């Protein structure tokens, strides 16, 4: 009888263990998020997505904690110090949106040596011990020119709006644009730095416009399309096709123009919800799953067909977004193996 009871208990215990297996392994794990910058709509949406998804995950006991930290200034040295603090605080995993792909490698190495899982996304780190959920920024540049080739088979003049000088995202997108433009009939006649901000882009474009020939289209990096449109609107030039970057003000302007005169363009960027993808990947790694070190994030593209729908779900001042689930992360991990 006693033995039978014991046996029953063991069986019951194993069943419970087996059924909660997927969750229980990371229930006591703490994940920290080191973010280098929060000063634009994309980053704000990213932090909100993180809070929403990880808040739910903590509540349901998937992980013990998922705290987000943002450095007060967008500086690699500060972020390195922040990561070192996280090591001291004893987190099990650190998710990073890095200020620099290389300048915090030292701190990332320290974290790995302390047995911490490091997952970087968007702003990835090159340190081999970390996981990378990278955006193919080059492809993002090429896609823009590809779209324009379809629209204007005869080519034309392009104005390029770049991001922040010296930042690798800027170099990569720009390299993609130039690569694709070289093989096309398009010619890049001007290039300005818009720092991914509408006001800076507007000033920069207004400054260069008088010196430029007719512009067929404007290739951008996101966060600068609306500024460019305003700069063009202030002149008597015809409105070129401006590639947008999924910002609400850009989509709104595009939708208004479309209603007025059938204006068409395309918009692509990375959904800020990619932070939640990184969270799930970190959770999977902590759970002992085998995950390839390099993963690629899909683009979130807005076309004329889904413009109205995306615009409706994007809050004012924010950016078009999707949040990822555990299943999305598992699919991504499986597809990369």
């Amino acid at each position, binding site marked *: 009888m006693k033995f039978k009871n014991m046996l029953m208990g063991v069986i019951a215990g194993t069943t419970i263990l087996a059924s909660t297996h997927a969750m229980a392994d990371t229930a006591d794990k703490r994940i920290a998020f080191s973010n280098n910058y*929060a000063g634009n709509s994309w980053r704000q949406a990213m932090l909100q997505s993180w809070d929403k998804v990880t808040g739910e995950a903590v509540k349901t006991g998937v992980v013990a904690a998922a*705290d987000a*930290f*943002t*450095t*007060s*200034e967008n*500086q*690699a*040295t*500060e972020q*390195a*110090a*922040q990561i*070192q*603090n996280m*090591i*001291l*605080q*004893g987190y099990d995993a650190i998710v990073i949106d890095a200020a*620099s*792909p*290389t*300048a*915090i*490698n*030292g*701190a990332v*190495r*320290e974290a790995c040596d302390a047995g911490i899982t490091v997952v970087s996304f968007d702003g990835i780190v*090159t*340190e081999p011990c970390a996981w990378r959920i990278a955006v193919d920024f080059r492809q993002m540049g090429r896609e823009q020119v590809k779209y324009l080739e379809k629209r204007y088979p005869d080519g034309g003049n392009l104005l390029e709006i770049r991001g922040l*000088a*010296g*930042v*690798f995202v800027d*170099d*990569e997108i720009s390299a993609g644009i130039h690569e694709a433009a070289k093989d096309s009939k398009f010619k890049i006649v001007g290039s300005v730095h818009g720092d991914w901000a509408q006001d800076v882009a507007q000033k920069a474009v207004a400054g260069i416009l008088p010196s430029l020939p007719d512009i067929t289209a404007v290739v951008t990096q996101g966060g600068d399309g609306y500024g460019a449109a305003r700069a063009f609107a202030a002149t008597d030039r015809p409105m070129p096709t401006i590639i947008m970057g999924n910002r609400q003000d850009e989509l709104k302007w595009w939708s208004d123009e479309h209603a007025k005169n059938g204006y068409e363009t395309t918009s692509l960027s990375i959904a800020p919800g990619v932070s939640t993808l990184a969270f799930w990947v970190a959770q999977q790694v902590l759970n002992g799953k085998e995950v390839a070190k390099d993963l690629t994030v899909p683009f979130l593209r807005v076309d004329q067909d889904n413009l109205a729908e995306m615009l409706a779900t994007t809050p004012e001042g924010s950016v078009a977004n999707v949040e990822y689930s555990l299943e999305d992360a598992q699919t991504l991990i499986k597809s990369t193996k």
Partner: protein
Amino acid sequence: MTRDHLRILLPIFSLGLLLAGVFYLQPRAMSYFGLNLLFNLAVPVALATIAQMMILMVNDIDLSIGTFVSFCACVTATFVQSDPVVGYAMLLGAIAVYAAMGAIIHARGLPAIVVTLGMSFFWSGMAILILPSPGGSAPAWLHAMMKAKPPFVPVAIIAPVVIGLIMHYFVKRSSLGVLLRGVGGNSQAIDRSGWSVLGLKATAYGIAGLFGVLSGMALVGLTTSADANIALRYTLLSIAGVILGGGEFTGGRVSPIGAVIGAMTLTLAASFLSFLHLSSDWQIGAQGAILILVLAVRLVFTRREALA
């Protein structure tokens, strides 16, 4: 208890207080490993602060130190690593440019704040030219030196102590140090006693350049690679560090040991705030509040002393 003692006691006290706070919030920091993590990034800041101190000492201010350190970091991660001869020549050249900048500022009577602001764009441009996208790698010996684990006391503590002591003897005890402080305090007196103020200013700037180079190299040793914008924050951090450490904007009144402690205090203040789980929106403000608090306490002490 002289003024100099008081000047150095206050920074030590504020550092101690912050350190106690950090240890209370995060007992794990109270170890060899923890101290190293807390302070290793303070080493390049301390070196940059010493550079800034040399300039403040001769009654000028340097707004280009952050971009200069970034530039040196880029050179270290590229040329010094691949072509040591060219790399070191470039770094020596950069020091020479710094010395020349000091000489020109004095000879033409230019305001240092304008010249160094202009130079900050120059260094920033050079850094982007050398390293258009982040990368490079640290020379192996440098990396090994910064990551070394000597017994008992971590590098992150040894390095600031050594830097502080060496500079203390140079500035406070050597005859050149006295002359340089004299240039900041009363350059006419130095001039009339037959010394070349031009030469002395160039020397001060040259030494600042040397420490800027060391700061860039130390930074690369820690981060293992560089980025053209890696040290932009150092400009303001270094000024704050010197002032926090008991220095003053009116030349000649500086304390090297205080400056090093000031740099460590600033680094620690940021860690303290993040251990507090303070929202990042408040962190810059809180960092400023700590700074103002320390300076206010100092003002109270110096006033009292002046009255006595």
